[in-house]
């Protein structure tokens, strides 16, 4: 890889949650790299520390030990430079704001400017600009969350199971749209998912984690070429990659 500054560089990350008497080792010596412009997926069973890892990368959580570098600096500095775009596991939209107003939130906070209408069009929700989150379907809300994460022009997009709550049809549509967006913007993406097929279809590389404490057990480069289409899922190469990721997960049947 001809990477100058890595988008994400995690070294020996260990995180322990302390709650009163009990402590829980959520992450144990995790190393993770995302190159500039690379699309990396993180798969692992529920509770293996994916959200914890993502929050550490976003500077929302101070890890117990280990180092995190983001775009050549610290996570806190990256936050201050407004180069992070975050899509949380639940969309976390503000219910009292309409769709446009939600997408404008990062612009208000950072003082950046952007063509919000164009942004809404790009994620396919321009017709719902005046709607409130409660009037939208789950898929629509995720689109709003995506538009909101992109509004201020981030260089690293952190997505935590953004399609987790969607049905298979909406998921498929959202994958296609995410890829289309990413191929245009060419920003770095760290994408958390439960779905092996989704990870393989979208990514340049799949990082496989195992359960408590969270460790990286495998890294699978996805040499499938681009652009990716759903038809790719029928190929033998795709099946082989899916098997390899599944093997890394210990053969759990998902």
């Amino acid at each position, binding site marked *: 890889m001809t990477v100058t500054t890595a988008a994400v560089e995690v070294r020996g990350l260990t995180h322990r949650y302390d709650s009163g008497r009990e402590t829980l080792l959520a992450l144990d010596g995790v190393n993770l790299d995302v190159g500039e412009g690379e699309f990396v997926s993180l798969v692992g069973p529920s509770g293996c520390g994916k959200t914890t890892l993502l929050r550490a990368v976003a*500077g*929302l959580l101070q890890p117990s030990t280990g180092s995190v570098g983001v775009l050549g600096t610290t996570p806190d500095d990256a*936050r201050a430079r407004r180069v992070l775009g975050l899509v949380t596991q639940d969309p*976390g939209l503000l219910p009292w704001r309409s769709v446009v107003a939600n997408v404008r939130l*990062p612009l208000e*906070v950072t003082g950046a400017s952007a063509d919000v209408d164009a942004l809404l069009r790009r994620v396919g929700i321009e017709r719902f600009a005046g709607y409130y989150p*409660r009037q939208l379907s789950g898929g629509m809300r995720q689109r709003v969350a995506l538009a909101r*994460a992109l509004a201020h022009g981030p260089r690293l997009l952190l997505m935590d199971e953004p399609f987790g709550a969607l049905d298979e049809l909406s998921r498929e549509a959202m994958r296609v749209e995410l890829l289309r967006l990413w191929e245009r913007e060419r920003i770095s993406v760290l994408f958390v998912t439960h779905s092996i097929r989704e990870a393989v279809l979208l990514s340049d590389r799949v990082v496989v984690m195992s359960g408590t404490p969270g460790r990286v057990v495998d890294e699978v480069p996805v040499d499938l070429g681009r652009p990716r289409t759903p038809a790719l899922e029928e190929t033998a190469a795709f099946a082989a990659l899916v098997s390899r990721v599944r093997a890394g997960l210990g053969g759990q049947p998902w």
Partner: protein
Amino acid sequence: MPDATDVVDLPGLPAEQEAAPARRGGATGALGRWLGLGFAPGLAAVVLLAAWEVWVRARDVQEYLLPPPSAVAQALADEPMRYIDASRLSLTAAMGGLLIASAGAFALAVVMAHSRPLERALYPPALMLKVTPIVAIYPLFTIWFGFGIWPKMLIAALITFFPMLVNAVIGLRSVDPQAYDFMRSLDASRWQVFWRLRLPSSLPYVFAALRISVPLSLIGAVVAEFLSGTSGMGQLILIANGDFDTPALFGAVVVLAALGVTLTGAVSYLERRVLTWHESSRGV
């Protein structure tokens, strides 16, 4: 904490902008709704009053024991200014107290919601204020502030302070963690988080507190007037009681009930206008 649990049962009425007609119709339909909302209670009231009137006249009950509704109406009609002036004073004390308490409690809640140590330090004295019977404090207030409107206002303030404080602290803390994470990922300042996230999140709780405090403030004001006997509805009741003027006593009760209903209705109306986004305005 009854103040906090009250939050759960915010009254549900469909918001204006909502595509609600489908939900509104239902099995009962327009006629059913009309009967339920206005007609049936009104009819029940008329029947009750008529029965009361007939019974009192038929049994020849003494007026000082139980006046007929017509005598109460007469008392109100004879001296309307007496009731209007008195309720103006009571209302000023109640609303003034409510305003002072709500503003002060919310400001304190902002401080407490931002700092656990400060919350721990300030909560016990606030709680002590709540559990102290305010009636016991009133003589002190007359010594310090005399017999004007101030001591009454302060009693109304004391009685409404705690519900607002508790609800506002909970409300200001009840931010959606994912929305908070998103704002932090943008390095939003405390100020931005406050205006754009905390304050709007707290509003349903603030309104719940107001619906508790509005009637409380009236109680506080009238009790204080009652104790001092110098002004307002409290004094009116005291005098009517001394004169065995039972129709006037009933008149005062009617006026106070009307004030309470009107004020509570005003809060609910405001709540529906402001919280169109909240579950409470969705009729669920």
